[in-house]
């Protein structure tokens, strides 16, 4: 059985999910997410050895299409609603620091 959810677990997960939580939210989320995980103990404790997991309800496997050229979205139409675009590309702030 998993250990109860701690405040530092929530802070760590927020970092992974690229969310900033303030002190109040950390407390609130620790309690609320803990409640959901507490409820999930009903399935956590089941012995499901040998049961296969389901990812798609009807067991769909790879879907392929014929390799033919079809029309796709126009680049300008896609970039129009982006926060920032430059030279036909999405523009973002710097990713790595300046060389020393």
């Amino acid at each position, binding site marked *: 059985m998993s250990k109860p959810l701690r405040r530092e677990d929530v802070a760590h997960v927020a970092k992974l999910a690229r*969310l900033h939580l303030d002190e109040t939210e950390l407390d609130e989320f620790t309690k609320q997410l803990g409640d959901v995980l507490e*409820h999930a103990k009903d399935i956590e404790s089941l012995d499901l050895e040998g049961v296969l997991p*389901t990812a798609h*309800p009807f067991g769909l496997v790879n879907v392929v299409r014929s390799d033919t050229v079809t029309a796709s979205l126009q680049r300008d139409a896609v970039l129009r609603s982006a926060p920032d675009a430059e030279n036909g590309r999405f523009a973002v702030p710097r990713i790595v620091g300046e060389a020393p």
Partner: protein
Amino acid sequence: MKTARDIAKNVNNGSSATLELEETLVRIKEQNDELNVFLYVDEQGARAAAQRVDEIVARGENAGPLAGVPIALKDNLCTVDVPTTCASKILDGWRPPYSATVVEKILAAGAVPVGKTNLDEFAMGSSTENSAFGPTRNPLDPSRVPGGSSGGSAAAVASQMTTLSLGSDTGGSIRQPAALCGIVGVKPTYGLVSRYGLVAFASSLDQIGPFASNVTDAATLLEAVAGHDSRDSTSLVEPSPSLVAHVEDGVKGRRVALVRELVDGADEDVVESVMKAVETLRAAGATIFELSIPELRLGLSAYYLIAPAEASSNLARFDGVRYGLRVDADDVAAMNEATRTAGFGKEVKRRIMLGTYALSAGYYDAYYGQALKVRTMTIEAFKRAYQQADLLIGATTPSVAFAFGSKTNDPMAMYLSDVFTIPTNLSGDAAISVPFGTGEADLPVGVQLLGPGRSEASLFSAARVLERADGRE
């Protein structure tokens, strides 16, 4: 109230779609301030669509099974060049470069899309209180919620602002608001309706479906939007079923099981309506028996691990780079975090957190892996049930429409309002909620009929029996 079938018939016979639309726009203007149903009304686009329908009819051609019928779209369905917000600040200013397949299909059927309806942000919620643009009010009692997450689409039809609407159902988001607003709502078989252009919440559970004031209209709309779409690799390849033709088939000889787990814990008034519905089906010639499917009790826990896990992955794309909002910061990672922190509301953050946790190292097997196995158990349990029964019956929701704020501080209490609808999403099967009788404060009760994959025709015919018995021809 004119039905969609009446409007389509009249319009195809030469009555004006444009006039029908103008009356719709007046109703929206009169009621939307109070009810907050529409996030965006596309008057220009709607007028153009209505005019096209009128021109087709003027040429002597048939404009389709939904000719001139005003329809509302949940605002997580992409509409080309028309704002699509998912009721989130993070999509602020975004206008999709393409339309969802369902939008193209309803236009081809002659329908007139009038605007985008409110929802719980990214379809996460059961009351429409999680919208960044304020809650929608229940037209039957504005002090209560319309349900959710497709609360705006349900309220659009219940208030008669539009004749039809489309929503999406990931854990009950069509059936639950339909029940709370006293209308018909359908969660079709997974893959029956293309999800192309539906902003993804939990891709293995999401399905688009219709709302209507009556069963026949719901069947007409579903028939118009169903069918294989090469742009959605999960869409079923089988030809889409004929539905409208079977609405009046009745239930004679059908085996219907009342499922204990789909009424246990429901309020007394709700249970009473379900029992009356059972007797109605018996009187109409169905064979009724009781059934217990204990695995369904595990659905809620499995769902609240699987859906957030998929959501945490799907919503990673909202990072301030490609759509809508960006909050500037010195580097990309800080910009991503600042944008997501400012753009997402609390419930969305909660679910992303829950999903990220359930998928993280050390917890994956205990939570997500275990939930996927419970999903298998749910599917097997339904399969066994459908060897004995053609249809299952139970409640759609544990209670009638509840008051604003009554569950907002306790996510688990809110999640429990989906306890009867969730199992069908896990199994990928079909279910319908049909209003039948009333409960507390004279508010409508939704009865839920469930069937195996692709059993929609049979669900519609049983729902129609209940509708007639409830005094709605």
